[in-house]
């Protein structure tokens, strides 16, 4: 069944969108990631204008992270104070990201920016995850290997210290603010929540305990993506609510199935699968940038990047 999307102004098969939402939902349920980094490139591939894909995906992430954070609130695994600091940085970053996005859109380079961001970040994260989980699998075969203890690094020597009771940390607010800004910029440009960057940053850079990391990042992501959605909606008019609803329905159902599959797999296997998936998306995008495209020309109209 074809559905005409009022903002994207393209006609797309509704079942294709439900299916995409479902598949990404399954993966996000399995791996505990938002799935924005997978969904946005998939939307590019099926012909949704990139500007609409990015803005609409931000809206969809609000839904999936809201659903996720409720569970974490029940388990009391959200550090509200840390979340707020990350959020302040995130809002600033998101505003900067939109400015950059609109500037490059006027230049006709927004596609390139979005795709380059994807290739670079997916490449780095996917590569690191792949190596790390390979090592973890190798170590698990040789029992006795110890987990490295939390180090005291340069992060702990910065001024403006603050107590974060839930995380059990006494650190400067500068690093969380910077992490927040970075994630905000990425959320605006890439149409992702940024969890896949924030989570490692919180664990390795800020030294937060793993159990509060996911809930806190979800808490921050809701507000940053909500803010991004509003900015895209009011400056570019590119949020397509029909597209968002179709993706949501598929995503919600998929996430339920995914969580059940996820329980049956081992953590290392899950991480290596996720790493392969991330690298595959990255590879496809990089391939498109490196190989001569069959059509060298592209059209730009007002309202379509």
């Amino acid at each position: 069944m074809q559905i005409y999307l009022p903002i994207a102004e393209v006609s797309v098969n509704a079942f294709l969108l439900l299916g995409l939402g479902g598949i990404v939902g399954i993966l996000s349920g399995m791996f505990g990631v938002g799935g924005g980094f997978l969904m946005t490139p998939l939307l590019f591939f099926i012909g949704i204008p990139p500007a609409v894909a990015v803005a609409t995906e931000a809206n969809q992430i609000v839904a999936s992270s809201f659903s996720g954070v409720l569970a974490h609130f029940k388990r009391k695994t959200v550090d509200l104070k840390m979340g707020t600091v990350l959020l302040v940085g995130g809002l600033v970053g998101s505003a900067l990201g939109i400015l950059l996005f609109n500037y490059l859109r006027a230049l006709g380079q927004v596609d390139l920016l979005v795709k380059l961001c994807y290739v670079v970040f997916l490449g780095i994260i996917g590569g690191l995850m792949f190596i790390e989980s390979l090592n973890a699998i190798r170590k698990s075969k040789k029992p006795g290997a110890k987990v490295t203890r939390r180090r005291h690094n340069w992060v702990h020597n910065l001024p403006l210290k603050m107590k974060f009771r839930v995380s059990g940390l006494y650190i400067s607010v500068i690093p969380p603010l910077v992490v927040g800004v970075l994630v905000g910029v990425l959320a605006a440009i890439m149409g992702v929540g940024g969890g896949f960057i924030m989570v490692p940053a919180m664990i390795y850079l800020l030294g937060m305990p793993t159990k509060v990391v996911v809930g806190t990042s979800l808490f921050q992501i809701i507000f940053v993506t909500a803010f991004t959605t509003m900015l895209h909606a009011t400056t570019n008019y590119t949020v397509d609510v029909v597209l968002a609803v179709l993706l949501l329905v598929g995503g919600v159902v998929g996430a339920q199935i995914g969580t059940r599959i996820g329980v049956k797999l081992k953590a290392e296997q899950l991480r290596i699968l996720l790493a392969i998936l991330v690298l595959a998306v990255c590879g496809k995008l990089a391939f498109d940038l490196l190989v001569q495209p069959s059509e060298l020309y592209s059209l730009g109209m007002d309202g379509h990047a």
Partner: protein
Amino acid sequence: MIRLIVLLMVLAIPAKAETIVLGLSHDRVSITATFEGSEILIFGAVKRDAPMPDTGDLGVIITVAGPAVPVTVRRKDRRLGIWVNTDNVEVSAAPTFYAVATSSPMNEILRDVEDLRYRVTIPRAIRSVGALVSDSETFTEALIRIRADQDLYQILEEAVDVEQDTLFRTSIALPANLTEGDYVARILLTRDGRVIDEYTANIPVYKVGLERWLFNLAHENAFLYGLMSLSIAIAAGWLASAAFSLLRR
């Protein structure tokens, strides 16, 4: 109403020996949520005050054009190993949709001079001025090629059926990826390659119902629209979470 106008036109220009009387299967196209494109049947007749002249062949050309808007055509080039947009040409006005159907091959029923004057063929319908790049024609060609691939530009030679040099009909398929606006159907009657009569009719193509409402809201009340999108997202997220915990019990 249309018939009245036709009648008035016929009466106003008595000097013309042959004039067009036109009918359309749709006088408007509505883009709804399930819009899958539309087919417009254009038919009519040649009205004659005098017996048919026997000099030259009769030709019928039917064009349907969407609103003309500026387009930026960008070309990719290799920079530092990756393909990036480099040169671009601003085409000042190109129709978002353009179909041209003829009764015989174009070069047999329309002279170049007349094409230039009436802007009939696709390259003539595109207005491109002030290009800074030397090979700006390749950009216009690219524009035509890309739009033709999406069925937005159609050349339908010999697609107009003409019966007894009087009745003519054709159908034009509008694809689903239409831009809204006032579309113009134009019928040109030619004899010996010269245009002897021209007739135009408007076909409004607009979103209706929910599509219209959402589009207007998004553009005129962007803040409200943003809030609405967010509340839908929050509600869906909450529902999902509630359903999850129900299932777990």
